[in-house]
């Protein structure tokens, strides 16, 4: 064999190896997205080896960005502040498609059957529905209040069983249920006077109850999606006991319903407390004093712990609540501006975005010690693909 043919053989073999390495099938169950809010980019991360796999850029203004996943967990749908809706391929690590569908948006949801993407818009206020595969507009639901032409900002948009989307009208104080069985003609059921300024909403993991947190008054609005005709109920009415709430320097969130042992944990607005609700009769059972005003209150998947982060000026702190003793068992100081927390699918780790330190910290939830850190450019939301299989996420 001549030397150059040997070289050719080597090169072709190497080529085959290279191609097969790239084409090695892999799953997406241990992947996730970290939002880099100021840079308009996202990182594709992997939770098994706790590493960054890639950065995908060109997603626009990602302040308050959030993500839902296709049911095969292959694609991430990233909802940007600027109305951008970007479909990211988690395996090829690139943008599959991107549209700008409104002037100002806040989040979205994927339908029960995975075919529709709904986006929650501030301006113009309403919900737009797209096909999940091509991002083609299917339906537009402008959110006017009653007979008024004034549009309302939409918050707390989630999917619910029986092909429904549920959302709240911030300005109008309403909850709407959109039945998507005929996608091009959503059937709306509207509930008015649910309370002042619903700031966010979520659905219980079984998809039965939709809960909107209220900013304008002390309480939560509860809708039983199994029997919506019974209407919206007020729960935890007047939990502030008439005391003036503290100024709120960052809105709390209801990202995912935190529950453990039949009890739910929710942030108290304008108070340094986490409220606990008995989900059988929807009454307050206890409240836990915490280091500041809670923003996210999230439960480890097994419900053994609840982790809480806070609004400024306490946003350098994270507290861990033990759900057996209902006591804060650890106060962590990860760094300035802890914006979001996400558990790995079975909860052995939690990832925290520490915006002002340009870091994502990974903690072991058993030892409550930091395991590792990843560099990220002003990270905010962290979203793992396990969300693909959960109602309301």
């Amino acid at each position, binding site marked *: 064999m001549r030397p150059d043919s040997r070289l050719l053989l080597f090169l072709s073999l190497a080529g085959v190896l290279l191609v097969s390495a790239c084409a090695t099938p892999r799953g997406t169950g241990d992947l996730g997205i970290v939002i880099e*809010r*100021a840079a308009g980019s996202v990182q594709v991360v992997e939770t098994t080896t706790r590493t960054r796999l890639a950065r995908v850029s060109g997603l626009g*203004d*990602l*302040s*308050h960005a959030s993500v839902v996943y296709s049911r095969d967990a292959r694609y991430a749908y990233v909802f940007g*502040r*600027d109305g951008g809706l970007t479909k990211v391929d988690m395996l090829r690590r690139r943008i599959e498609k991107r549209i700008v569908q409104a*002037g*100002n948006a*806040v989040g979205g949801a994927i339908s029960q059957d995975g075919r529709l993407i709904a986006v929650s818009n*501030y*301006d113009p206020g309403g919900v737009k529905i797209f096909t999940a595969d091509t991002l083609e507009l299917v339906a537009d639901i402008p959110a006017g209040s009653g007979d008024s032409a004034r549009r309302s*900002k939409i*918050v707390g948009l989630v999917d619910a069983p029986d092909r429904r989307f549920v959302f709240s009208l*911030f300005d109008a104080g309403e909850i709407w249920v959109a039945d998507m069985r005929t996608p091009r003609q959503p059937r709306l059921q509207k509930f008015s006077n649910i309370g002042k*300024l619903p*700031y966010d909403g979520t659905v219980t993991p079984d998809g039965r109850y939709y809960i909107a947190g209220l*900013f304008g008054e002390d309480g939560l609005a509860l809708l039983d999606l199994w029997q919506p005709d019974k209407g919206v109920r007020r729960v935890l009415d007047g939990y502030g006991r008439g005391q003036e709430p503290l*100024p*709120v*320097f*960052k*809105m709390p969130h209801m990202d995912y319903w935190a529950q453990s042992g039949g009890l739910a944990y929710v942030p108290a607005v304008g108070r340094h407390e986490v409220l606990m609700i008995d989900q059988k009769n929807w009454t307050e059972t206890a409240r836990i004093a915490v280091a500041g005003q809670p923003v996210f209150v999230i439960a480890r998947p097994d419900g053994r712990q609840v982790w809480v982060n806070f609004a*400024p*000026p306490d946003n350098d702190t994270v507290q861990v609540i033990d759900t057996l003793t209902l006591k804060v068992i650890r106060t962590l100081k990860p760094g300035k*501006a802890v914006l979001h927390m996400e558990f790995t699918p079975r909860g052995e780790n939690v990832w925290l975005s520490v*915006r*002002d330190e340009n870091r994502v910290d990974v903690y072991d939830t058993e030892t409550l010690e930091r395991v590792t850190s990843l560099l990220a450019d*002003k990270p905010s939301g962290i979203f793992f693909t396990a969300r693909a299989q959960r109602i309301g996420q």
Partner: protein
Amino acid sequence: MRTRTPMTGIMLAALMSLGPGMAHAEVPETRQAELMHLLTQDCGSCHGLKRRGGLGPALTPEALTGKPAVMLREVILHGLPGTAMPPWKNFMSTQEADWMVQMLLEGRTDAP
């Protein structure tokens, strides 16, 4: 009756620019960087990183056209009761709030 001459307008404009200009000088550069960070990140939580609005209204120069600087400063310091806008007076002085208003009205996002 006196009519307002173009000259008066120019002088008014000069006076108006003098006010925030003085406030500017009173805020040290390191503090300016902190305030710009607060403006972008914390105000940005509700008003958007690019100030184009969110749960709170847009704060671009166009959006703020016609709104007096003093009023904006008071809203920053004392909030707007009945809305989600909180008082920020524990985070900054009056001069610092004036400086932030100036940054908003000029549409500036660059910190020193």
